[in-house]
């Protein structure tokens, strides 16, 4: 425990700041490259992030380096730290980040951007790279580095794509540099030569890194076991990275291509090692689309024959109901928990536009199984504001839900509506995002048509609008991020903390025209993430966009053949 007792005693969630997890190793810092790994959200969110855990493990596996963790402190803790003039301390050794060589952020969500500034500031570092002449070097990895423009001024160097290899190259480069130089600029030049690294001001472009073989990739087999409940509080084994279904709105689906699977043997080996070393009573098998795992049958057998008899609970997110047997769902207790299912759009036409290959027949087939097998609740996800959406598509959601409700009266229907946010590196990167007024109008329309017994919830349109601006923003947006942060923007991903007024004011004060970032773009418009090469060609994405507008869908390329997105020859 690194903060004074009295300080922790006065915050709401002191357990987030104590560290001391089982499996924690404290290393002697002597002569090592010291990395502070930072996650710009709470401990509970950051500790649930697999990428963060992988990088922590890789650095600490090296004899010549160490990694320690920091997370964004909650509001009460931040206030107390400032009042008592205590800097943010790492959970391992309780040192201030000033004593580290590298401060490495893991950034996977745009609404965490304000957390980057909180951490920099509480570490006593200037917010802007241009004002940081000394170490620590501030680097960033995670999904958001594939469209980093709005946070470029805060970060010295970005790693794009899978981090497993590049983190080692960064540390090696750092070691070489330290032997010969003290000049930070020389370090940045050396780093810019690593593939997958983007150094603002030095690099022109950057190519995404990806690891080819998951079986050979390092994986944390002795992960830290949190002492307090985190969001995903279980052992985790990633069974597959990437997805080839080609849903046109899905950023992860394009960013994580090509699809790479972990072999069943490796999954078994990792699972048993992790369960043994942590004592977890639950394991989750992670992927973007578990139903597409080639040896799903073998995995199911392993779960039934080995895990369940050893009193281990299992969760497989993103598993489609029609791909495994009823017995299996029953065995893992999924029937009790309730099914989640994402048709995303209410009419076939619109599902074709977004390339969500689910038909109305599939939906009813799923509901048939659900009701026949006695599931009590179903959670359905839809988006509004998708490209080409008309009133009849919104009404289509209501019609679809009403007829499900009509047919399966006993079923508890929970519906979650979110607003479509066009994402970089997807075919919809050129698409328009609807305005707040339109969003409210569509929600009103939907509510007026939908059976009142259906539980409807929706994401705050203002949060989606902010996400849209930050995700497709350019470097100018960074000024508004600083302004909003100074005005008190913290934890924007948390609905009870989010304040649109603060952001709107900040955009206005910095002459940020919201419409410029949300309107439709043409092939001729330069995009702020054009310099990031994810391996997928822009022509392919544009072509997909055009096909989408005419309602032409594509099958999964692993089944129907190659469409030349470019990633496999990358």
């Amino acid at each position, binding site marked *: 425990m690194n903060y004074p*007792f009295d300080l922790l005693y006065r915050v709401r969630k002191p357990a987030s700041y104590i560290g001391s997890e089982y499996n924690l190793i404290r290393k002697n810092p002597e002569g090592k490259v010291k990395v502070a790994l930072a996650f710009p959200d709470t401990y509970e969110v950051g500790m649930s992030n697999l990428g963060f855990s992988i990088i922590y493990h890789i650095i600490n596996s090296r004899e010549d380096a160490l990694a320690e963790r920091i997370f964004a402190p909650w509001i009460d803790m931040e206030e107390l730290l400032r009042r008592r003039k205590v800097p943010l301390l790492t959970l391992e050794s309780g040192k201030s980040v000033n004593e580290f060589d590298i401060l490495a952020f893991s950034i996977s969500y745009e609404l965490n951007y304000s957390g980057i500034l909180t951490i920099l500031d509480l570490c006593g570092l200037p917010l802007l790279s241009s004002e940081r002449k000394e170490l620590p070097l501030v680097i960033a990895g995670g999904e958001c580095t594939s469209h980093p423009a709005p946070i470029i001024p805060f970060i010295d160097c970005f790693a794009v794509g899978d981090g497993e290899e590049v983190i080692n190259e960064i540390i090696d480069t750092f070691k070489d540099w330290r032997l010969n130089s003290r000049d930070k600029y020389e370090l940045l030049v050396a780093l810019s030569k690593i593939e997958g690294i983007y150094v603002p001001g030095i690099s022109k472009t950057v190519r995404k890194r990806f690891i080819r073989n998951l079986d050979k990739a390092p994986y944390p087999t002795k992960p830290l076991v949190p002492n307090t409940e985190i969001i995903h509080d279980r052992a985790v084994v990633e069974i597959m990275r990437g997805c080839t279904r080609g849903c046109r709105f899905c950023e992860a689906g394009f960013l994580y291509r090509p699809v790479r699977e972990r072999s069943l043997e490796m999954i078994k080996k990792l699972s048993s090692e992790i369960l043994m070393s942590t004592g977890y*009573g639950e394991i989750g098998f992670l992927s973007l689309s578990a139903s597409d795992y080639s040896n799903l049958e073998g995995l199911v057998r392993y779960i039934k024959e080995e895990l369940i008899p050893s009193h281990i609970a299992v969760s497989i997110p993103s598993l489609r109901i029609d791909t495994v047997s009823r017995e299996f769902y029953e065995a893992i207790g999924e029937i009790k928990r309730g099914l989640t299912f994402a048709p995303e759009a209410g009419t076939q036409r619109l599902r074709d536009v977004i390339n969500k290959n689910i038909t109305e027949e599939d939906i009813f087939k799923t509901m048939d199984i659900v009701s026949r097998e006695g599931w009590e609740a179903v959670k359905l996800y839809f988006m509004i504001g998708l490209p080409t959406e008309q009133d009849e598509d919104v009404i289509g959601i209501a019609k679809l839900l009403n007829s499900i409700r009509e047919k399966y009266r006993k079923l508890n229907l929970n519906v979650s509506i979110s607003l479509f946010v066009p994402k970089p590196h997807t075919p919809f990167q050129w698409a328009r995002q609807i305005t707040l007024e339109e969003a409210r109008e569509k929600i009103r329309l939907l509510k007026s048509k939908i059976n009142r017994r259906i539980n409807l919830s929706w994401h705050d349109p203002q949060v989606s609008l902010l996400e849209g601006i930050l995700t497709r923003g350019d470097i100018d947006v960074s000024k508004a991020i600083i302004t909003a942060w100074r005005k008190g923007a913290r934890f924007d991903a948390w609905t009870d903390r989010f304040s649109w007024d603060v952001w709107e004011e900040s955009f206005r004060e910095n002459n940020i025209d919201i419409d410029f970032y949300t309107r439709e773009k043409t092939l001729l418009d330069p995009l702020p993430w054009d310099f990031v090469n994810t391996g997928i060609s822009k022509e392919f994405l544009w072509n997909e966009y055009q096909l989408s507008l005419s309602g032409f869908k594509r099958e999964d390329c692993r089944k129907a053949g190659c469409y030349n997105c470019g990633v496999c020859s990358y």
Partner: protein
Amino acid sequence: MVFVRIEYRKFGPLVFISHLDLIRCWERIVRRADIGVSFTEGFHPRPRFSFSPPLPVGFEGERELLDIKLEKPCLDIKNRINRVVPQGIYVNNIFFIQQSDLGESVIGGLYSFQWLGDTDRVELEKGLEDLGLKDWLYNSEQLTQTSIFHFKNSLTIPLLFEKGYPSPKKIVELVDGIGEVVWLKLSRVQLLER
């Protein structure tokens, strides 16, 4: 049926975890220690546990109790557990027992509060009386090197888990209400058994 009663210390960083966190923490400890505990049925099998009454967050427990039901007797339980505990839990003793009766036999705890602050003695004693308390041990020690505060205070009170007795948190609130203090340590020194 075999029960093992574990007498352990909860200290250091783990004083800040809640009772629910503590249960999860012990669940993982006994799975790692592999001592043959008995699990509940269902989709989320849990070890069959029985804990002494919850410690408030922030309190150290010097002699806490936990009963675990075992499938079969197991040797060397104390060492097997102490090899796999996180920093902040340590087993002092174990006993094999016939029956788990923690709920009935434990009736209260002896609590200790330590803080820095120039707390007014009369006000404190009046506050304690208002809370319906009669027995306590209070000591205030003058500090030689002082910065903001001149006294180090310690208060020890037995509190029963029954109606009419305040929770230890109430006493913390009372002291906090009298004047500015810095807390040094809060603890349940021992459980009071029937």
